[in-house]
């Protein structure tokens, strides 16, 4: 299970105990430690107001850390002004300069770097081809669609070959289909050009699709930083389990511990085996986390070690699968996800079904 110290590669960026407060009363970012290796695609994911943009702004140099240091390689970044950091940045509203044409926009970072005209021409031309907007070069941003503007913003942040590209919810303004298309395009660019990307989003699907690693923020603290699959399979705490993907939670208490496994009581006198989460001991209050697709129904539940019966509230048909909402003691919004072909179509709301799961599908986590 990989964790967040990438000792093998020297980190490109290192946040060391970074803190930030705007008003001198509450910390918006609390003791942030994060390393980003060269070529990595790291996403900062979290609910609104959790401090993602603040982190990115500190990295870009538009906000100063209240405490701690940010390093670029061995260089301390805190006192480097933003225009000398050589990071590409894509803003949520693109921030394309409305009084310049597409081409002038893309050329701008080359102009500030005083590149010779011929070389600048070549680079602009190359990147225009790459984003396939050559015929729009003379247009102004206002005359482009949202997706095209997005591509121009991307081109402008890449044309000067920055060491690091920062993106703050760059796809937030696009509709679903375009967003998914752009996610892939950015992902491909990242692979093709070997970019290092720090990406901010509050869309977990986006984070899982695109990233090498995801840092889940809540309330100014990184809850977990890991690969997408590890975040999903091995959430470190109840917040992460709840935030990433769909999740059922049962409030309980740890009864006994054997190595990595434990037994926990929940509801009225019920118990289940579970994988023991970090920093839990016998007697601790816990949130038992079960993914809906791991919950089996009736026939499929027969041989499983943990079984209980529940009353069905409703069925929600979703094409390839069904969501079965049941009432359990302690959670009357418990969801099982059943493939359509494995579903017993005789069932009606109000019926009682048997639910079952394996020990290793349950994680006993810290109660937040």
């Amino acid at each position, binding site marked *: 299970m990989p964790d967040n110290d990438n000792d093998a590669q020297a980190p490109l960026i290192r946040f060391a105990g970074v803190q930030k407060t705007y008003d001198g009363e509450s910390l918006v970012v609390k003791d942030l430690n994060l390393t980003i290796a060269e070529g990595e695609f790291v996403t900062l994911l979290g609910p609104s107001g959790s401090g993602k943009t603040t982190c990115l702004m500190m990295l870009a140099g538009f906000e100063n850390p209240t405490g701690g240091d940010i390093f670029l390689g061995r260089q301390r970044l805190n006192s480097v002004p933003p*225009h000398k950091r050589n990071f590409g940045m894509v803003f949520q509203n693109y921030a394309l300069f409305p009084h310049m044409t597409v081409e002038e926009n893309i050329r701008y970072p080359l102009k500030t770097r005083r590149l010779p005209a011929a070389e600048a021409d070549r680079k602009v031309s190359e990147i225009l081809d790459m984003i396939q907007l050559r015929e729009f070069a003379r247009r102004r941003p*206002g005359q482009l669609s949202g997706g095209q503007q997005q591509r121009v913003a991307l081109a402008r942040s890449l044309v000067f070959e920055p060491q690091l590209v920062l993106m703050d919810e760059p796809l937030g303004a696009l509709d679903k289909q375009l967003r998914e298309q752009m996610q892939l395009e950015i992902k491909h660019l990242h692979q093709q050009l070997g970019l290092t990307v720090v990406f901010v989003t509050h869309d977990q699907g986006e984070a899982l699709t695109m990233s090498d690693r995801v840092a889940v923020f809540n309330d100014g603290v990184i809850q977990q930083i890991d690969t997408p699959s590890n975040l999903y399979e091995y959430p470190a705490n109840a917040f992460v389990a709840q935030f990433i993907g769909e999740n059922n939670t049962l409030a309980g208490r740890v009864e006994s511990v054997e190595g990595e496994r434990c037994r926990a009581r929940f509801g009225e006198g019920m118990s289940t085996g579970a994988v023991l989460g970090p920093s839990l001991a016998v007697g601790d209050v816990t949130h038992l986390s079960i993914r809906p697709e791991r919950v089996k129904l009736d026939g499929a539940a027969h041989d499983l070690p943990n079984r209980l019966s529940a009353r069905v509230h409703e069925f929600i048909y979703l094409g390839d699968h069904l969501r079965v909402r049941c009432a359990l003691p302690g959670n009357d919004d418990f969801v099982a996800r059943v493939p359509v072909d494995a579903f017993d179509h005789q069932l009606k709301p109000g019926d009682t079904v048997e639910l079952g799961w394996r020990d290793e599908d349950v994680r006993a986590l810290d109660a937040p």
Partner: protein
Amino acid sequence: MASTTLDGAAAPEQGNLKSRLRRAERLRKVKAVGLVAPLALFLVVVFVVPIGSMLLNSIDNGSLRQVMPQTASSLQQWDGEGLPGEATFAVFADELRDSRRGGGLGSVGRRLNYEDPQYRGLLMRTLMGLPSASDNWRDTLIDIDPAWGETATWQGIQAAAPPRTDRYLLASLDLERGADGEVQRVDQQDRLYQAVFQRTMVIAGGVTLICLALGFPLAYLLATLPARTSNLLMILVLLPFWTSLLVRTAAWIILLQSNGLANQSMMALGLIESPLQLVFNRIGVFFAMVHILLPFMVLPLYSVMKGISPSYQRAAVSLGAHPFAAFWQVYVPQTVSGVAAGTILVFIMALGYYITPALVGGPADQMVSYYVAYYTNTTNNWGMAAALGSILLMVTLLLYLVYHRLVNRRQLIRR
């Protein structure tokens, strides 16, 4: 109409609907017209009519044609050589006698005096000595005053005869028609208005530039500060509007005069030895006018700047631009429409300033409006007043057009 006969039930319903729609639409139109009618009427009464009549006044040749219609028309037929015929002398004598009654003599005298200041006296003398009848009016008049025997005297009256004239407009540009009717510049010592127009432009332009230089940073501050602070500052910007223009102007006189607060504090600080002349000269004019006009620069700038997201500058900086360069290359161009609105507003308002330069300026700081006021209030010369006003209007329109062109070419396509 085949379908309506087929479907008899729907037909009356449909017709009914149409007429109801028409009625509703008509009502809406009447309401709309009714709502704008007062404004339209107001604009016609206070804007179109006065400006139109001012433009007409500037080319109106004055009262000779009303007071002495026959003299005017018979003089218009005269070829301007030698002396007019006996008939002209006769109708002139007749109409001169009659003019005493209607009070027309005064206005004719005033008009003719613009040609030559001798006329009023000449007319008075002639009227005194005018017999009730004569069989040779030419000799009679020449007897009363030999001036009537000179061609120039009659040419002067002839010049006042046509209904329209360009003399006021020409005079407003320091031009006149010479003896041969050619347009020429007036004598060096009589030239005045070109300088006045030039001065008006310089003062208005200077005030506009100072307002821009002071207003731009202020508007920027207002647009970027947190809302609470910027609202407070905005009240301070608008504060001058709460006091009358005269009070503010008087306040500047008190502040800037030789023993005023400004001079005394500078002397107390040891910056100057003796009081500076800060008022009743150009400095005073600039102080007072900039103070009064500054809000008209700040408000349009502010409203444009408020709409510019700070992320543009951040983007420019993130792309490697020094913050100053980012401001200049990315922020300032986006404020062009506000700068345009503010400068044109301030410049045009400044062009028409009268009371402030009259109070805090010296004799060499008076602008066109001062002379307009002078001609209307003091000498009753409506022709000159209207001509100066018209030329100012034309110059303003012309400048506006040029400006509009320039700004439009750089006009931004905003999102």
